[in-house]
């Protein structure tokens, strides 16, 4: 059992925290707001059903799981926590979400705050819903040491997810493929090709997808999907990843999917 501190802003953070708690780890959870500042409101959201967690670890955590989606939020959050903690966590391993930035890039920022040395940092990637998945992506940087690699493997194995090592990149394998599918479905919806329900039915029956892309987006969180696409767009500078305006509109409107009660569909 380890002392795990989960920091995030959406469904991935929630799911990891829940899985870690169920696996018997001592879990602390912090949520950040859209700017990256600690947000107790998000934390209190009844939809998370999150009451059992305390906010900050009392001692130095063994593992920090970072699951913040936007780059700008990540920066603010790490600066904030570095100031707040006022100490170097030289023995803490940090598993950073690579949905919107490569582990190498995140390591560079974290190294600047001097909170965690960059050898202790490794990337991870997957997508909600995680309950049925049995594999998770691990993205070591050129600096990641054996210790963090082994610890990350052990941690995810303890959650029932087999770690699979891939090259460090933005968006990993599954998130990049699925976010692109969702974006493409969102364009089709926006262009009036078919209704959201018909698009989802078609993809489930016509190609055997586990979820329709739009209902999947609602499960992941539209904020998260948009974050992945914006990061891919910025990284590759290619039109191919430009997010569908309808996705952005829904995110602006606060319709982030199941978690907020409304996304491509309504949840009552």
């Amino acid at each position: 059992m380890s002392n795990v501190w989960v920091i995030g802003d959406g469904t991935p953070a929630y799911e990891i925290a829940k899985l870690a708690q169920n696996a018997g780890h001592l879990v602390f959870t912090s949520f950040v707001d859209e700017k990256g500042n600690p947000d107790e409101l998000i934390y209190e959201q009844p939809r998370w059903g999150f009451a059992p967690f305390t906010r900050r670890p009392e001692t130095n955590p063994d593992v920090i799981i970072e699951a913040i989606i936007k780059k700008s939020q990540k920066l603010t959050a790490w600066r904030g926590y570095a100031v707040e903690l006022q100490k170097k966590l030289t023995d803490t391993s940090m598993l950073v979400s690579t949905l919107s930035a490569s582990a190498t890039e995140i390591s560079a920022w974290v190294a600047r705050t001097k909170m965690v040395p960059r050898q202790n940092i490794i990337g991870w990637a997957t997508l909600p819903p995680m309950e049925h998945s049995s594999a998770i992506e691990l993205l070591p940087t050129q600096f990641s040491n054996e210790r963090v690699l082994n610890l990350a493997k052990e941690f995810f194995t303890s959650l029932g997810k087999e770690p699979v090592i891939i090259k460090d990149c933005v968006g990993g394998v599954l998130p990049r493929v699925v976010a692109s599918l969702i974006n493409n479905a969102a364009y089709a919806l926006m262009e009036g090709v078919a209704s959201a329900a018909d698009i989802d039915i078609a993809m489930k029956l016509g190609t055997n997808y586990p979820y329709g892309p739009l209902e999947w987006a609602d499960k992941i969180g539209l904020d998260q999907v948009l974050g992945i696409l914006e990061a891919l767009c910025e990284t590759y500078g290619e039109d191919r990843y430009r997010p569908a305006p309808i996705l952005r509109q829904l995110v602006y409107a606060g319709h982030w999917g199941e978690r907020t009660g409304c996304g491509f569909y309504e949840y009552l």
Partner: protein
Amino acid sequence: MIENIKKIGVLGSGTMGGGIAQVAAQSGFDVLLYDINTEILQKAFSKISGFINRAAEKGKITRDEADIAIERIITTTHLPNMAGCDFIIEAVPEKLELKQSLYQELDTITAPKVILATNTSTLSVTQIASVTKNPGRVVGMHFFNPVPLMKLVEVIGGAISDEAAIQITVEMAKRLGKTPVVTKDVPGFIVNRVARPFYLEALRLLEEGVADYATIDRLIREGGGFNMGPFELMDLIGLDVNFAASVSVYEAYFHEPRYRPSLLQQRMVESGRLGRKSGRGWYEYGEGEK
């Protein structure tokens, strides 16, 4: 309207037409199956009756049901016989001129209220309809292969299809035991358009060396819950067929970057490693696995 439909005409007795005729007969419709010569029709008929008989042997339907279904199918090489049909589904080869000339004939043979539904995968329904005097009754009815197993039917309203024709086709799909979805006449309709990134992003990840194809497949399956990874699926579909679909969608959307085909896949196609059908694609297949 739909209650009056008793007899379905099916044009083309190949992979799709044969499957559609089988499903229609098993759903209680009389079927008139048309093709260019009796030899082809005989082959198609024995294939269809074989499938239906096998269903009876397996106990999925009764012997009586099988016999009745087989009796419902009549074949013809004489197009004007289609005059007796209440609903027509066309599944002839994917060639615009061929389909258009057939629709021109059907337009004069059949009563104007009879719906003409095309099973085209890549052509524009609107363009096929445009050569008829009653384009409002021409719609798309896109079945999936194998027709008896695949539940989905995309019902495509062309730019000038009548709303009523679309609705009747939706009802017809339901009567055939299918789940219809309604889509506009856009390249790839829903499935073949929305699915493109499943292959194209996976190919890019491979090109960038993020992971090898087997690892990508594994992460998509075990991480995402898909039944098959993109590379396994390409091998099943045929790399050439899958590549052609990407090229066709890319061209049809005026080179939209989201659909840009993969150079790596093109090289694979050129190499002749086309997937299961050639014994090797991304993966190698023993004789038994093909």
